[in-house]
């Protein structure tokens, strides 16, 4: 049973916790990349990107459950791809805005220093501005990734075999005594990963702070 919760049911592997983590890493990672592109576009051409900003604001008002359902029903993508695409869009709507605000808050003194050192604009962005933004937004990104891991549970509505779905299926197959144990085990697994992620993010944040970054 614990193996099924960790890596999925025998006919649906990878699944369980492994799939939850993979979906978080893929959707969250792609969202950071796309979010950085969005933030860069917004900071360099704020008026041209107004429509995109409005679109993301609307997207933030849409529940992840509805996004998952809509993408599954309205596209021809495979179920798993639809689910990850929904997680990506949901993540982008939150991460993009956080990165945009941090990128806009880049201190003019650093820009001036880069100019004095003779950095070209692309080099300044690549070596100073983008790393500065990522480091500053690490706390917000970390909180969002933890939330995203828990939100993978929304994939239960389309039956993708991540941890919540596997726990639900296993609990339905067992007797009345066993289901609570299975669901508690699943909750414990989520809790373990969340605590580990929180510790890792705190460690990295404190390390950056000590380095004065």
């Amino acid at each position: 049973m614990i193996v099924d919760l960790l890596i999925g049911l025998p006919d649906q592997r990878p699944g369980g916790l492994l799939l939850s983590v993979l979906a978080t890493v893929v959707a969250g990672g792609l969202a950071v990349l796309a979010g950085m592109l969005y933030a860069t576009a917004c900071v360099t051409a704020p008026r041209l990107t107004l429509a995109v900003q409005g679109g993301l604001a609307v997207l933030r008002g849409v529940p992840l459950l509805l996004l998952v359902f809509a993408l599954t029903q309205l596209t021809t993508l495979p179920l798993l791809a639809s689910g990850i695409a929904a997680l990506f869009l949901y993540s982008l709507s939150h991460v993009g805005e956080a990165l945009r605000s941090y990128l806009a808050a880049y201190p003019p003194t650093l820009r001036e220093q880069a100019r004095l050192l003779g950095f070209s604009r692309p080099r300044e962005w690549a070596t100073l501005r983008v790393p500065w933004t990522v480091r500053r937004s690490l706390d917000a990104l970390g909180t969002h990734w933890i939330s995203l891991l828990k939100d993978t549970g929304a994939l239960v509505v389309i039956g993708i075999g991540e941890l919540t779905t596997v726990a639900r299926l296993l609990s339905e197959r067992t007797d009345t005594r066993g289901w609570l144990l299975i669901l508690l085990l699943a909750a414990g697994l989520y809790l373990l990963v969340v605590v580990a992620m929180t510790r890792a993010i705190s460690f990295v944040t404190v390390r950056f702070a000590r380095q004065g970054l």
Partner: protein
Amino acid sequence: MPDEFLTPVLGTVVLWFLSASAAVTLAGALASASVSPRRLVRRPAEGFMLVTRGVPTSLLVIVAGLAAMPYPPPGWLPNPFPGTSSGMTLVAWAVTLALAFGSTGHLAVIFRTGYRAIGPIRLEQLRLLGLGAVDRGRIVVRESAKASLAPTGARLVHHLHNTGFAALFPVADLFGWIQQRSHETFEVSRFVAIGVTAYVVLSLLIWAVTRTLEARLGAPRAPGAVPRPAPQPAAQPAPAVLAGSAADTGPSGAP
């Protein structure tokens, strides 16, 4: 169609209102306990906050729903959930409780952060004023609300979105209605569009209420926003005592 649409929307609003009220109340109690100097009070509160923040709401809803399903609702239990059959009242209440637990930890952390934002000096000032516990509590809530209203609003919007998990059980809500009507009519895009509009409007309402409260409390519009400069003494003459206290505390009110 209007009635058919209004019932699930009302179902979602009722689910949200009841569970959010419970979550805010419980979070307030937890936040108070988590800043207690007594370890016996603080530690359990922190543990509970960690658990409710670490476990997904979807799982909490499934546990609550499955636990309540086999039992008939007791006669005294009211059914305020529009569209939910009376036989499912207990499940609806269990889902409401699970939704509340799903947000309690997050809200408690927000409230605790708001409390800490008041600062130890201001808290000491309030203690020295000799006010009763109720009056002091009222001032603390009001002052901490300036820092915690915006994230509370964001969490309550997320909480609204989480009400969709009620659709995993026979409890009437907007997301369940969208799913059901899409499957019945095959007009998926139409019902998804209706659902998106309804959720965005409800989210905007929560956001608008939060912003109105923020404006009333005079909170800064955004984190790090520059506060408005204090009026010049010449333009607004003040009694000697107040002028003296203003000089002590500086333009931003900080000592």
